[in-house]
């Protein structure tokens, strides 16, 4: 009961406590994080990116297939198979007109041996545990039937248990390749953006900081480079360095830093007029210290926004190169090369294209959403 009495007791009021800011002081990073969290799309994008990274990094340890394991028996098998119940066993018709035995779980247990070919009837006869079944390929929808009566066996759909996302034209597991391809695509994006960041910050920083003649010349060079169609140059640089991961990163790094340099220069130009730079100069800081310790950290907001926006274009460019067939060397996989490989069998096995295409789209969405959110969070002044 004592607490009840004390509840309304006046606290001692001093001028010090009146002046004190009671709410916690938020750092810049915490402030940005708070604003970012208030945008559902940005949070969704961030979560998706984290999930894809997990998928790409941890995933390969959870699957028993590697991205390069080929199995020429299990070619172009979709994730959801149409299986025919022959009685003694279930069979699946591959796009290359062979029969594969499937058990109840959806595991593929092996090819059925061919007994003979009946070309007049458009049938191939297979041996299924001593029973003869016919694969009729006379019409566009191939069916498994009884040779004598022509009765079609009952069919149903079953999920592919061995290869959750099916296999590609060389019998490689698509899930394993997808994990590997996502890793390659994300890595290309991050590393090439890092290269851009370094070149762009140094170039733009020096240009903006020194000003005058140096700035004029450096910016004319940037102007000239920015008129060049960059896609063409990425392709040309790829040819000089040959196919491969390093070449893609070098090509993207060498070409896309122009925007970054412009952004950094603009920031440095306006920041270097401020008093804190003068103060730093007064206490005898070297130009290098002023540029790297004072100016660049203050410009970090816009730099980060530009970098986040660069990532989707790097992913797109890598996929584009892969799609044109000048990206990675097989059997290495990236999302773009997977789409390219799938094009040959698009008619019969659309899953080979749709799955990596979906992943590309999701990654692009995620980065675009996150980039938008980052822009609003880092630079509230820019908000429309």
């Amino acid at each position, binding site marked *: 009961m004592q607490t009840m009495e004390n509840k309304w007791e006046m606290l001692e009021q001093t001028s010090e406590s009146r002046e004190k800011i009671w709410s916690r002081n938020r750092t810049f990073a915490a402030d940005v994080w708070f604003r970012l969290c208030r945008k559902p799309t940005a949070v969704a994008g961030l979560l998706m990116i984290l999930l894809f990274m997990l998928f790409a990094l941890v995933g390969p340890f959870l699957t028993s297939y590697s991205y390069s394991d080929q199995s020429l028996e299990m070619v172009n098998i979709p994730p959801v198979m149409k299986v025919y119940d022959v009685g003694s066993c279930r069979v699946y018709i591959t796009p290359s007109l062979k029969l594969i035995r499937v058990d109840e779980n959806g595991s593929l247990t092996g090819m059925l041996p061919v007994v003979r070919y009946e070309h007049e009837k458009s049938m191939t006869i297979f041996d299924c545990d001593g029973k003869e079944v016919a694969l009729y390929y006379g019409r566009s929808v191939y069916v498994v039937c009884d040779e004598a009566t022509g009765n079609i066996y009952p069919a149903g759909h079953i999920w592919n248990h061995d290869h959750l996302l099916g296999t590609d034209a060389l019998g490689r597991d698509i899930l394993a390749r997808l994990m590997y391809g996502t890793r390659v695509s994300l890595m290309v994006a991050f590393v090439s953006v890092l290269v851009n960041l370094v070149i762009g910050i140094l170039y733009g920083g020096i240009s903006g900081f020194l000003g005058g003649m140096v700035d004029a010349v450096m910016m*004319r060079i940037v*102007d*000239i*480079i920015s*008129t*060049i*169609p960059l*896609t*063409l*140059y990425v*392709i*040309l*640089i790829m*040819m*000089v360095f*040959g196919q491969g991961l390093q070449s893609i990163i070098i090509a993207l790094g060498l070409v896309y830093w122009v925007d970054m340099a412009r952004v950094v220069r603009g920031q440095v130009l306006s920041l270097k007029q401020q008093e804190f730079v003068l103060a730093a100069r007064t206490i005898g800081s070297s130009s290098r210290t002023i540029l790297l310790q004072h100016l660049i950290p203050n410009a970090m907001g816009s730099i980060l926004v530009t970098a986040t926006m660069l990532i*989707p274009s790097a992913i*797109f460019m890598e*996929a*584009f190169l892969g*799609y*044109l*067939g*000048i990206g990675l060397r097989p059997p290495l996989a990236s999302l773009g090369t997977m*789409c390219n490989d*799938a*094009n040959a069998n*698009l*008619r019969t096995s*659309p899953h080979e*294209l*749709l799955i990596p*295409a979906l992943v*590309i*789209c999701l990654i*692009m*969405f995620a980065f*675009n959403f996150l980039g938008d959110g980052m822009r609003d969070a880092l630079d509230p002044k820019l908000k*429309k």
Partner: protein
Amino acid sequence: MAKYFAKRVGMMILSMLAICLITFSLMHAVPGGPFTSDRKVAEEVEAALNEKYGLDKPLPVQFLSYMKGLLHGDFGPSYKYTGKTVNEFIENGFPVSGRLGFITIVFVLLASIPMGILAAVRNGKWQDMLIMAAATIGVTIPSFVIASILVYFFSYRLGWMPSYGLDSWKGYILPVVTLGGYSVSYLARLTRSSLLEVMGQDYIRTARAKGLSEFKIITRHALRNALLPVITVLGPTVANLLTGSFVVENIFAIPGLGKYFVNSVSQRDYTTIMGVTIFYAAFLMAMVLVVDVFYCLIDPRIQYE
């Protein structure tokens, strides 16, 4: 203004020189000469070939003679197809690409601007949401994905349109949609945001106060100013369409310039790569300049220093 454009043209010439120089040095940095192949060629043959194409001379001399050819509009012979010149490739390929590009631009303008206007007029309603969702998807999905999905559904599944070639008008539909998809989405978003901005201005309120109909306000007053940013990005849009044509012409087997370019890249046909790159670059820069001149003419507020 004339001074500004003189400066621009001067920059363009400088850029062209830089492009030629970069392309030339990149091509000569490629390991292996144009006549290195898997088959063993006798040394004399290789030497004779090198001499015929002037590859035995020092690099600066080669560059100068190449530039001299360029100034006369001669892109040199193709290294891979004997007897063919790069000019022939460009003459054969460019009209095809150009026609496709022109139709695409018309399609882009006809589709994106009305979509943007509708979204802006119905700001916040379901039409706006739908158009903006579609535009976001269109901006994010790479063109080759769009192309493959369209081919799968419309050519293979439904059989409505051919999956390759430009033999009939139907053949144009899928390539044009693929090529223009990104630009339609981008321009629709741009039109919407710029129209919304203009609609908030005072002179629109004045027009409303005069009692003009909403239709008239938009078509007569708002759109004129709202379309200016759209015109600004038309130059880069042309660039997008041209580079997009690499993918589209490959998927739909269209014998345009993009297909020649990609083929020559995979066959390492150096002169063709150089020639087409330089041609593309010159065309793009000219387009951007033309758009800028046009922009300056229609917007008297712009003052070029």
